[in-house]
């Protein structure tokens, strides 16, 4: 059993989701997976060395991760309220359409 390779596997799965999925919720889950893969190393290496400093660092990392999730969820909800979709491609297209409309109004 090697926890470093396990962590790399989880990282690869997270990057796969981040690159291929268009749903914002899936992208958020992928970010969570990447964060879990990174923070797993704290515990894995701390168990090798001995001591509890790795656990303390993991707790700090998880808190940061959770605040990040809160911010992204808020942005997702705002995007859904404004534009009615959570598809990343549709969101970028809608943004372009809005910018074009604004330019048209100015003229």
């Amino acid at each position, binding site marked *: 059993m090697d926890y470093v*390779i396990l962590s790399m596997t989880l990282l690869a*799965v997270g990057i796969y989701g981040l690159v291929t999925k268009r749903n914002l919720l899936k992208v958020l889950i992928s970010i969570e997976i990447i964060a879990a893969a990174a923070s797993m190393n704290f515990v894995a290496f701390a168990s090798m060395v001995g001591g*509890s400093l790795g*656990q303390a660092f993991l*707790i700090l990392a998880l808190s940061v*991760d*959770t605040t990040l999730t809160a911010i992204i969820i808020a942005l997702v909800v705002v995007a859904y309220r404004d534009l009615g979709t959570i598809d990343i491609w549709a969101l970028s297209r809608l943004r372009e359409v809005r910018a074009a409309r604004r330019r048209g109004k100015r003229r």
Partner: protein
Amino acid sequence: MISYEIVFTVALVVSTFLAVHLEESVHAVASFGFMIILLSGLYFSLGAPFAAVFQLAIGVGTLAVFFLAGEMLASKKEPTQRLRGKLLGVLAAVILSLPSIALSVTPNVQINSKGVPFSEALWGLRGLDVAAQGFVILVISMGVAIILKRRRS
């Protein structure tokens, strides 16, 4: 004999992969929940009970938010995925989990140090970080509330 760590590892990779692979948002979030529980169990087996409990507590909160967001934001015409696609995903995940079971890149280092106890590590060594992080979390939660309130008005 198959050790429980190997079973945990395979299940962890499968649930992680399914959390990304499944098309239905609620199923993906449920799979993500399994991943959190298995990760917590793995931490416990590594001798980090505080990290395991903290991961579980944080994960449950995150899952609740994800479930609500998944139900609220999922489109009515979510594409249905065939059973064959799901099974292929499970198979791919099992194959992905094999390197972590069979290979080893970590050097076998034996360090005979008892280290510091958890309370000393958290409050003695990183106490200032914990306090600062509490402040940061408070500011961020206020910021999120302001974003949502402003948009609603």
